[in-house]
């Protein structure tokens, strides 16, 4: 798979972005999130390309949407903790992206399609790529080697996913016959 990231690769129509040290924003927890997001974007492409259908692709899409929320929450806590002066504008960008992802998920749930999943994957990959390099990098000088940043970054964990009702159906007794 060494040619996967080469710009000259014609087969995949476009190159894939994966996390590398060039994307590091100086906060390990945030870097780890970015890795996961790139990984999930890749998985969504793979699922859509393999015509996996709704059970797989829909699950990847949901994971991506969930992790976007999780990650933005972490990043916003860090920016606030370090007194990043452009936090508000940055959080607004997050809010806009969140809306966009929600809209994609809504459309997908109405009519699951691999094309739509691919479209979102490409859009998100571009967005994340530019957002990290152009926007996230701007808080790096405030956040790196900053104890307040690492405290804030690790203040969010598994509880984020535990706080509200889960949405799936449980066992046989809870299903209509």
């Amino acid at each position, binding site marked *: 798979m060494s040619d996967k990231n080469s710009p000259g690769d014609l087969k995949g129509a476009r190159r894939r972005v994966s996390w590398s040290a060039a994307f590091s924003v100086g906060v390990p927890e945030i870097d*780890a*999130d970015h890795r*996961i997001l790139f*990984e*999930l974007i890749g*998985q969504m492409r*793979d*699922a859509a390309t*393999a015509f*996996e259908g*709704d*059970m*797989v*692709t*829909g*699950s*990847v*899409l*949901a*994971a991506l949407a*969930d*992790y976007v929320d*999780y990650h933005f929450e972490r990043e916003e806590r860090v920016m606030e903790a370090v007194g990043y002066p452009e936090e508000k504008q940055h959080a607004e960008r997050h809010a806009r992206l969140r809306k966009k992802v929600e809209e994609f998920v809504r459309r997908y749930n109405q009519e699951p399609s691999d094309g739509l999943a691919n479209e979102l994957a490409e859009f998100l990959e571009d967005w994340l790529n530019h957002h990290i390099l152009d926007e996230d990098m701007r808080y790096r000088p405030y956040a790196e080697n900053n104890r307040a940043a690492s405290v804030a970054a690790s203040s969010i*964990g*598994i509880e984020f*996913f*535990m706080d*509200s009702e*889960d*949405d*799936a*159906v*449980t*066992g*046989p007794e809870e*299903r209509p*016959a």
Partner: protein
Amino acid sequence: MIWEDLRVLVVDDNANIRRLIATILQGVNVKSVREAANGHTALEILRSFPIDLVLLDYVMEGMDGPAVTRAVRGEIDRDGRRVPVIVVTGYSEVARLNVAKEAGVNDFIAKPFTTKTLLQRIARALSQDMTLKEMETLALQRQRQLRVGS
């Protein structure tokens, strides 16, 4: 609950589902996720490594989810302790779910699933069955037994 120490086995014939679940767990710092593409391999892993939780596909070639669960209940569980088994399935007709329930499955997750659902079901299954500490002790005992036996 210490998610970092959790040892999970994901059994699914679909590689993309295995990869997805592994990534989701990695995202919340679960360090140990093993994967099996079929029931046979799953049981080999369960015999050789301490596993705290099994996420199990229903429909698979060879042994299906209920068959794997029966084997877990018969062969892997020890001292009245049950390894939590959650079936993750796209086929959630009542008849199937009942078969799985009778086989000893703890819970079900319907595909497609959200991250929230997956993690909440895992948390619930773990808190129902036993504390992680208890599981650890048990898993260590099992490992010792295996070593003695070989």
